[in-house]
């Protein structure tokens, strides 16, 4: 929630998270190099670096892609989501080392520009055994570069959350390209089955958790809520825990109805930072707090507290007995709506 440009807003949790990432990366690299050197003493240093960084990058990408859906399925994973960008940039840097060493090893000794050589040295796109799998890796790297280069909130703010999110969901295309890059690369030298087996297991896991989280999400979209005089029936007030929200779908946009301090307020479910799900957050210190990165909004007007200037649309509410009704039409972002008091 940076008001001014700051490279990284460090916190104790972020420092611990980054330290854990750094130690894990070093441990993996050292273990990989030591074990592979012992098993195969003839292996060159360049090959060891290419393989250790390649395997580490694909493992980290799997971890990164698991964090999102796991956080939707179980909020215990939310702390991992908070700093996922650091993990993403780390993965990109490791993938870059892999790409640079691979380019130097396999494309730097000819009379063609090494980068051009990646794309034109092998044109056997019709062959499975000799498919130019390096092209797939290069295309994935370009996507990852764009993501890493725009990962800072500076770009999020300048591009808009919508454009930024559109760019960053291209990670799924990068993932697909990388699965095929590894698969077709390994397929060209199938001396062992375990890399293919691990990659297949990882792919099934990633697809499985994403579909499970998507199925859970689609239940919200498929609610057919009854309407009455411009209001939508959102359910019973007792269904909502204190300081938590219920999320409903109105006109294909989501609305989060928060219950706090004996009151109810409804705001758009979409955080202005990264479009995170506000309705999966809590009311902390009287403020709606996004579960992804802690951006905060006042429940009654959808405005961030000073000095911040983010705003989300608000919705009118009424209570009939214990039944909640939400206005179908959203107010402009930042419009104050008096909270509904729960009188029982």
């Amino acid at each position, binding site marked *: 929630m940076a008001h001014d440009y700051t490279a990284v807003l460090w916190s104790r949790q972020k420092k611990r998270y980054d330290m854990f990432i750094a130690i894990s990366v070093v441990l993996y690299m050292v273990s990989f190099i030591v074990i592979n050197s012992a098993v195969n003493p003839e292996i060159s240093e360049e090959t060891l670096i290419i393989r250790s960084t390649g395997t580490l990058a694909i493992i980290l990408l799997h971890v990164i892609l698991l964090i999102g859906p796991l956080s939707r399925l179980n909020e215990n994973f939310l702390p991992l989501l908070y700093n996922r960008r650091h993990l993403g940039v780390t993965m990109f840097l490791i993938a870059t080392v892999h790409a640079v060493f691979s380019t130097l090893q396999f494309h730097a000794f000819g009379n063609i520009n090494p980068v051009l050589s990646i794309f034109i040295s092998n044109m056997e796109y019709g062959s499975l055994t000799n498919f130019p799998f390096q092209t797939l890796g290069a295309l994935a790297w370009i996507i990852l570069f764009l993501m890493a280069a725009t990962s800072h909130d500076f770009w999020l703010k300048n591009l808009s959350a*919508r454009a930024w999110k559109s760019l960053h*969901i291209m990670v*799924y295309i990068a993932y697909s390209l990388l*699965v095929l890059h590894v*698969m077709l690369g390994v397929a060209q030298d199938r001396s062992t089955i375990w890399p293919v087996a691990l990659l297949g297991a990882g792919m099934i896991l990633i697809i499985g958790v994403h579909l499970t989280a998507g199925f859970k999400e689609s239940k919200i979209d498929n609610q057919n809520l009854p309407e009455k005089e411009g209001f939508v029936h959102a359910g019973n007030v007792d269904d909502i825990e204190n300081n938590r929200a219920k999320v409903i779908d109105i006109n294909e*946009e989501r609305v989060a109805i928060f219950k706090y301090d004996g009151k109810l307020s409804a705001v758009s479910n979409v955080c202005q930072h990264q479009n995170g799900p506000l309705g999966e957050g809590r009311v902390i210190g009287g403020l709606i707090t996004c579960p992804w990165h802690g951006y905060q909004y006042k429940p009654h007007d959808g405005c961030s507290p000073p000095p911040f200037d983010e705003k989300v649309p608000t919705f009118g509410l009424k209570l009939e007995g214990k039944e909640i009704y939400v206005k179908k039409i959203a107010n402009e972002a930042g419009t104050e709506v008096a909270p509904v008091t729960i009188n029982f």
Partner: protein
Amino acid sequence: MIQSIRKRHRLMWVVISIALPLMFAFALIFTPEKKEDTNFSSVEFLDWKEIRKANLEGINAYLAEDKKGIIKLILHFKEPVKSAFATVQLNEKQLGTISSKSSQVFDLPSLPEKATVVIFDEIDKKEILKVEL
């Protein structure tokens, strides 16, 4: 997420969850097993008659005669030749260039009494390997 991004996200995962496992399985099933040629130690499997051979650390070299009586020089590289442009020379005469294949065969006009095979790096202008047959 807003509705349009949510829909795009969902569409992407529907496509990925169908297409990616299919492509993965396709690659797994239809990639032919790579021929294991590290045990290539004779020319018998070609039904050729082996005349002379030399086994060095990085290369196995053979002189053989096929059924039509044509003399062949067969080179089997045990490890990649670390040169972007290398040629094969027999008794100081160039036979051809090294390709990406681990085994290469050259036709010879006749059986040389003594064969000195040199793998020559044409960029650095130096010998990479030398075999006497």
